Structures are given as structure tokens and as C-alpha cells.
């Protein structure tokens, strides 16, 4: 899954190790997340979203287009 985790981390001038400490995960997990090799669980995705003050879908992109909303 594509994501902007790396960009958000660099904006804050954090290393992968810094982000790992903030999220309570290993540095290799941060590396795998940024490379798109690992999709986080829902609790971890929420934790990431809260840490950066964004919504989950602003950070992660599953590549699926949202269907147009129906009008009532």
C-alpha cells in the first residue's frame, strides 16, 4: 500500500529510529512501512494518523477509487 509516511517523517526532521520510538515499533517495521512492503494493522494505522494529526486515508492509499456518493 502506498503511503506518505516518509514525507511526513522528513517534514518533522525525524529519523526512522525517532519515528519507531514515537510509535513503539521496531525500526525495521518503519522501513518496511515506508517502502510499502508492510501494511499496518488498524490500531497501528490509527496511531500513525494520530501522531501526524491526519486521517488514515490521507496517509495511506490502497489505490482503489472511491465510488461517487449517491444523492438522496
Amino acid at each position, binding site marked *: 500500500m502506498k503511503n506518505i509516511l516518509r514525507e511526513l517523517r522528513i517534514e518533522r526532521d525525524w529519523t526512522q529510529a525517532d519515528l519507531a520510538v514515537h510509535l*513503539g*515499533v521496531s525500526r525495521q517495521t518503519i522501513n518496511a512501512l515506508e517502502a510499502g512492503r508492510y501494511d499496518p494493522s488498524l490500531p497501528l494505522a490509527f496511531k500513525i494518523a494520530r501522531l501526524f494529526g491526519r486521517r488514515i486515508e490521507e496517509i495511506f492509499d490502497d489505490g482503489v477509487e472511491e465510488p461517487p456518493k449517491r444523492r438522496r
Partner: protein
Amino acid sequence: MRPESDEPLSGPDIAARRYAWAQSALAILFAASVIAAAYLVRGADTDLMRWMAVALPAAVFLVWTWVAVRSIRAADEMVQAALVRAVAIAGTLVTVAATIWGLFETLLAAPRLPIFLLAPAFAVFFGIAVRAQGVRAR
């Protein structure tokens, strides 16, 4: 940029480092205790002493297993998933290899292999399966 040694370590990274050291020490201790048990059994006068000699590597192995399980529980979600997959892969490979060898051993008189070698075989397959997933112990 900070040198790698100055970078902060997260909880799972600290735990992984600690458990990697503990498991390396226990692996060496297990090998040494198997060799010691072989000598002690030969020199023992009573059955009780022989049983106690063999109980030594058995106890070390139980501790090693307990530490290995603790290390998996202490890992974060990604590493934990990779380690559990590696346990499944290694367990399957060892079971398949042991069963096939056992058939040849029983039906065709192939050389007898000691069952206690299953543990090191499992450790080797486990290590390969972990590395193949791009995960490493720090």
C-alpha cells in the same frame, strides 16, 4: 545526520537486541551441555546420576524455548508476524524431512539419526525463513 549508535531505540528494538544475545548464549550453552552430558553419562556410577546428566541439556533447551517464545511475544506486529510465519515454515520442513527420513530408516535401514537433532534443524530452517522475509535480529 546522527551516527547509528546514537539513534534512539524503541521498546521492541531494545527487546530484540536483548533476546538475540540471550538466545545466542543459550544456543552455545545447549551445545556445551550436550557435550558435557555425553561425558558425564559415561562416567556416572548410578542411573540417577545419568538421568541428572541428561536433564542438564534438557533444562537448558526448555529455557531456550521459553526465551524464544518470549522474544516473539515482545516483538512488534510486523516482526511478530514474520517470526510466526518462520515457525510455521520451519516446523513444516522439519516434520516433512523427519517423516521421510523415518520411512527410509524404518523400511530401508537408512542410517539412524538422533531425534535431538530436530531442534538444531528447526533452528537452521527458522533462521533461513526469517532472513528470507527480510527480518533480522539486531
